[in-house]
């Protein structure tokens, strides 16, 4: 089953969110709650978590990209 990783709603209101760094690689096993990416916005660093156990199947955004709330940035294969 494919599970989408999205930019969390609580980052809403920020003018610009940037994907700073992936904390995992494609093919890595992750557990629910693991931090998988760092995003930065107006004076706020936000860590995006895996919503479920699985394996990182693909990235849909690159480090340095501007991303939006709700945007799918990666897929986990559960």
């Amino acid at each position: 089953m494919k599970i989408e990783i999205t930019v969390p709603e609580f980052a809403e209101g920020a003018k610009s969110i940037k994907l700073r760094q992936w904390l995992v690689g494609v093919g890595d096993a992750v557990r629910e709650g693991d931090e998988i990416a760092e995003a930065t916005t107006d004076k706020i660093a936000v860590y995006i978590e895996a919503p479920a156990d699985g394996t990182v199947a693909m990235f849909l955004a690159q480090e340095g990209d501007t991303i939006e709330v709700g945007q799918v940035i990666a897929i986990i294969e559960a």
Partner: protein
Amino acid sequence: MFRDPSLFGRKGRLMKECIHWLDLGLIGYDEAFSLQRRLHEGCWKGTHGDAVLFQENQPVITLGRSGREEHLLWTPERLEAAGIEVREVGRGGDVTYHGLGQIVISPILHFRRYVSTALDYLRALEETVIRLLAGYGLAAGRIEGKTGVWAGGLKVAAAGVAVSHGITMHGLAVNIRPDMEHFSAIVPCGLRGMGVTSLKLLGRGDLSYARVRDDWLAAFESVFGLSAVEWDPKTAPAGTYTPTGKG
């Protein structure tokens, strides 16, 4: 109790949260950061509830997640001669100076218990300092497009937070009476041409660290609609309580 609807939006709350506060006193940045991370983890794992840490640091310049080295203006030799260390930290924002005469306030909170978004949280933190200064008869506010709290066009408090597992880290640094010369080592928060000030320079040189801490707690309780009690050393997480903390 007044609550600014623009800060609290749809998050109405029926009961007051009760959280703990802990004053680490004068402490090295690395040690304090390690304690903060440990408390953050404890908060996430449910070992304890939300908390606020206070500290005063030996001189250190921190580079946030968007920090750029060109915003560091002194050479490594000059920084070393002045006793200022440099650290990269996991919070938003650019370059920040911490040192003696400044109170660093780090709420470790499930912030969505109080506000809806991380940006609302940042604005609410700024509001605590605006109210703190209002209590001292000082007019302060925000500047559109910039973070922190400003008085007379100068920054009196820096703000920068990190959110992990829905729990915050880092927070505020309020200038009480720091060595202002040290700020010339950086472009504060990457904002070239924007100066900094302190409570002392604003005419309140009489204020102590403990007084500012206690008054800020009152403003924090009011803005966030919670109550904060000092962590009893018997129940504080092991290794975090320092009896030498300023009281």
